[in-house]
Structure formats: structure tokens, C-alpha cells
């Protein structure tokens, strides 16, 4: 099946200079199948209009597409369509939660929102492997409220170190925010253990699902998280769209941050009243074409099956890890068994930027830098790494081409033993 899928992605036929493209940067953003691209054409040629605000036929068609998108998301991750709030990206979704907590503590949202209020003496817990998107907003919340920011450390093997879990997440903890899967190490974190501890102390759980939802089956209600966030663009969908998922009661109590049109019930010059979720978080004209395209993407993903995607990536990552082990001078960051198809590594004597440049010259697209996870890199004693990340359209050939290019890197830069 996977061999055929590749043909659905027109960009994969590109050539980089003289080389065919091996795209191993899906951890940053995924490529799109033709059907997703076609949805844009279809939407803008046949049913583009402002949603929810018009009686005319185009507006009705646009609204249908928009709401069908919510259903597609709910089908994928569980819950009801009203639990799906559209954002511009996962980052906005995480900020809406953190900033909503901030506003709750300042009297916005009334007594209903009181449960979200934080102050000195309270703590917020994150992990050392967070993407900046799930770290900086919580730093800001700590700064704004006087709450303490704590974090779960990471082991040398690239897993969460839970030995101190019960003292780090304690009775002061109001929020436990962590990533489902590390975007650098590929490690899948033990959500159940963390949620169980959060429940013991009565903390809200915020899950960064950016790297899980596209790559493995995920069921938010089953995981019992309170809020979750992910982006469409990493899951075969378009740029400009993210999802904030939450428990209905909590979403309806959380004060909105962005305010304006289409999220209010009544507005006078003096004051305004807000709609329930999801609309309360959807101020202004929404990314409607993007939602339509994402619905197509999710249909495609569902047809392939997320369990198959995970199996496929695990096959590829085995090949990558085995191959890298044979190349001298490469240190892989993390060694978790439970992982998705993503590998970050350090090439001894060659900076990641230079590694990436060399691989690109061979048509292999990887990501270099800190991958928006500076603290994690610091933890591993590097400022930057190179990351190869796979998706359903990658194949063994991509891995082979990556490995043979990688083997040439140190020789090219004149470090280590010359291999041939």
C-alpha cells in the first residue's frame, strides 16, 4: 500500500539540483496529497463564502464544509464536533489555554472561570523536552501570575525521568502540560502515568499532540486529557490551521483571548457576551478553505489507517537507526523504544547546519537546528542537531539515500577517518 501512496504527493517528484528529492522533514511540516491540493481549487471555485453569517447558498455550502471539518477531527481524535476549536496553528491553541488561564485569574469569565485561576504558591509543570510552543506560553503564565514553573527532566536515553514525578507534580500543581511525542527524539511519552498523577493532585492536563496525531492512533477522551493541541500542516493538511480540543465544560468556562466578530451573542458599546465553544475561540473570519482541505486530508489518513502509518514509520526508523549505527562519529539523541519515525543526531566535528547543507546537495531534505527545543538540546550538550523524520510517503529508498549521503558528510568536511 505505502509504495502506491507516494504517487499521490506531487512534490515528491521534484528534483533538487540533479538528485531526486528524499523528503525527511515531515516533523516540521508534511507534504500534501493531490486530493488536499484539489480541495483548495474546488472550494475557491465552487463554494467560497463567509460562513455562519449568511443566508445565501454559497454561504450555506461554505458553512457545511466548515462544520464537516469539525466532524472529521472528532472522528479522528474522539469527542464531539463542538470540542474542536479552530486556531491558526497548534501554537495558538496552546496559547489560548495558557492566556485563558491568565485571564481567568484576572476576573474574566466570571466565577465559572475561577477554577483556572493561578497565583503565587501554585505550580505549573512542563517537561524538559517541550517544543517552545508548549514552554514559552507557560513561562509567560508563570511570570504573569506568580506561579512557579517546574519541569520533569529527561533521561540520557531521551525519555521522561519520572523518578521525582510525585514531588514535581504535587498538591500545588494546577497545570501539567507536556508533549505526547517529542519532536526531536521521537519518544512517545506515557500519557496515562502523567494523567493519573495529575488527577491525584487535581491538575489540568494540557497535551501537545502535534507529533502524535499525524503519526499514530490517538483518542483524547480515552487519554482523559483536558485540553489538546495539534496542527493541520503536520498531518497532510494545509498551513494556517490548528486545533484546540478540550472537554466541553472546560472550553465553555475558559475565557476567550481573541475577541471580535462571530464569537459574541450580543454587543453593546459598553460590553459583550460570548458564545459557547467552539465559536467563543473563533473570532473573526476563519480559515475556511483550510478546514475543507484538512477534512480531505483526514479522510485520506483515515483510509490509510493511523496504525498502519505507525507500523510503516517504525519499519523505516529501524532502517535509519541501524544504518546510522554503522556510520562512525554519529551520536543519536535518545534511544526510546516506544517512538515514531523521527531521529535526531549529532555528527562529531561537523555542525548540523553543514550536515543539512551537504544532505541537501544530495537531494535529502532534513531539518537542522534546535527544532524549537533549545532546553532539550542543552540537556544533550549540543546547540543544534540534525533530524530526519519520516511519514507515510517515505520509503526504504529514501532511507538508503539518506544513509549513503550521511556517510559522506564527515569525509567531505575532512573530519574523522576518510571512508573511501
Amino acid at each position, binding site marked *: 500500500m505505502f509504495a502506491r501512496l507516494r504517487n499521490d504527493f506531487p512534490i515528491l517528484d521534484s528534483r533538487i539540483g540533479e538528485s531526486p528529492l528524499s523528503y525527511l522533514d515531515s516533523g516540521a511540516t508534511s507534504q500534501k496529497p493531490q486530493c488536499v491540493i484539489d480541495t483548495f481549487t474546488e472550494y475557491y471555485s465552487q463554494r467560497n463564502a463567509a460562513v*455562519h*453569517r*449568511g*443566508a445565501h447558498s454559497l*454561504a*450555506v455550502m461554505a*458553512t*457545511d464544509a466548515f462544520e464537516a471539518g469539525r466532524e472529521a477531527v472528532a472522528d479522528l481524535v474522539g469527542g464531539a464536533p463542538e470540542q474542536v476549536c479552530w486556531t491558526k496553528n497548534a501554537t495558538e491553541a496552546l496559547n489560548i489555554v495558557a492566556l485563558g488561564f491568565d485571564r481567568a485569574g484576572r476576573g474574566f469569565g466570571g466565577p465559572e472561570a475561577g477554577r483556572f485561576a493561578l497565583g503565587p504558591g501554585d505550580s505549573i509543570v512542563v517537561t524538559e523536552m517541550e517544543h517552545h510552543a508548549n514552554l514559552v506560553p507557560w513561562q509567560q503564565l508563570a511570570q504573569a501570575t506568580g506561579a512557579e514553573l517546574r519541569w520533569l527532566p529527561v533521561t540520557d536515553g531521551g525519555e521522561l525521568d519520572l523518578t521525582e514525578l510525585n514531588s514535581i507534580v504535587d498538591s500545588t500543581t494546577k497545570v501539567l502540560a507536556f508533549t505526547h511525542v517529542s519532536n526531536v527524539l521521537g519518544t512517545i511519552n506515557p500519557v496515562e502515568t502523567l494523567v493519573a498523577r495529575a488527577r491525584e493532585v487535581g491538575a489540568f492536563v494540557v497535551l501537545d499532540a502535534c507529533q502524535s496525531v499525524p503519526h499514530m492512533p490517538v483518542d483524547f477522551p480515552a487519554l482523559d486529557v483536558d485540553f489538546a493541541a495539534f496542527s493541520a500542516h503536520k498531518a497532510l493538511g494545509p498551513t494556517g490551521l490548528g486545533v484546540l480540543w478540550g472537554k466541553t465544560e472546560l472550553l465553555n468556562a475558559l475565557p476567550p483571548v481573541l475577541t471580535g466578530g*462571530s464569537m*459574541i*451573542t*450580543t454587543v453593546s458599546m459598553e460590553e459583550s457576551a460570548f*458564545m459557547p465553544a467552539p*465559536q467563543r475561540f473563533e473570532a473573526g473570519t476563519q480559515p475556511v478553505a483550510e478546514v475543507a482541505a484538512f477534512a480531505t486530508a483526514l479522510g485520506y489518513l483515515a483510509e490509510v489507517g493511523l496504525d498502519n502509518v505507525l507500523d510503516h514509520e517504525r519499519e523505516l526508523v529501524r532502517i535509519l537507526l541501524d544504518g546510522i549505527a554503522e556510520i562512525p562519529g554519529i551520536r543519536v539523541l535518545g534511544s526510546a523504544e516506544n517512538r515514531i519515525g523521527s531521529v535526531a543526531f549529532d555528527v562529531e566535528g561537523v555542525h548540523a547546519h553543514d550536515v543539512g547543507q551537504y544532505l541537501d546537495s544530495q537531494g535529502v531534505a532534513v531539518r537542522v537546528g534546535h527544532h524549537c527545543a533549545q532546553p532539550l538540546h542543552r540537556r544533550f550538550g549540543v546547540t543544534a542537531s540534525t533530524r530526519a523524520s519520516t511519514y507515510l510517503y517515505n520509503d526504504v529508498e529514501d532511507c538508503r539515500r539518506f544513509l549513503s549521503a550521511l556517510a559522506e558528510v564527515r569525509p567531505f568536511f575532512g573530519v574523522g577517518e576518510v571512508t573511501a
Partner: protein
Amino acid sequence: MSTQMQQLYQQVILDHSRSRIGNSALRRDAADGPHGYSHQVNPTCGDEIELETELGSDGLIVRWTGDGCSISMASASVLSELAAESTPEQMLEIEAKFHELMHSRGTMEPDEEALGDAAAFTGVSKFPARIKCALLAWMAFKDALGQAQSSLEEK
């Protein structure tokens, strides 16, 4: 004129939108029997309705004032007419049937006997943007009736 339009704007609906049964000043706490009140807004268009139910000695009474399109006003009028002939329990059954009909996207035959004039709204279900208009008064009714019933229980 499209037949869809004629189905949407049945003569019954246009008539109700003008005669507006039940459209009268609210009495609120001046009401004689146990009562409930609800204010519903359609944020899309700003249409609104204030509706109260009173469990009078002669039965159910509905009063409402509102501002909205012919569909929403006619719906409130039909509701008031039905309420005058029904028990609260019957009305809740009608409400459930009406709700289902509205979400049927034109695929359901209305139960004309139970729904009475409300069956004329069948055409509305083909216009997703107008379903809220038809349901506005019913949402208010359900809310207000619930209050009236619980204030009855408290007594």
C-alpha cells in the same frame, strides 16, 4: 419562483408571521401561576425572543415578544397556538418531534397530526441557515418551561 422558496414560505408561515399568536407583554413575576422566562438570541443575525411560560390553572400559557424574521416569528406563533391546546408533557413531545424534523434536511415526513401548523416548517429543514430561526422560540420555550416546572416543584 422556485418551489423550494414556496416550501420554505408556506402560506401558513406567512400568516403566522403576521398574526403572531402569543405575542403580548410579558408578566414576569406578576404572573399568577408558576412561571419561567427565557431570552434567546441568534448571534448570526441578532434576532431575539423573550418568552415566558406560565402553568395557569386552565393550563399552559405562553407569552412572548421578539424581533426576527418571518420564520422565527411564525414559529413562536405556532408554538403559542399549540401550547394553548396541550399539556406541558405533550408540548415536550412536540418539541422533540419538531427538533428532529428541523434537522432532517428535508428527508422526513412531518407527523402532521402531532405537529399541527408546525408541520408547515418542513421546508425550512432544507435551509440549514434558517433552522436556528425556526428553533429559537422552541429553545426559549424548553428553557422557560423547565423553570416553571421546577418552581412548581419547589412549592
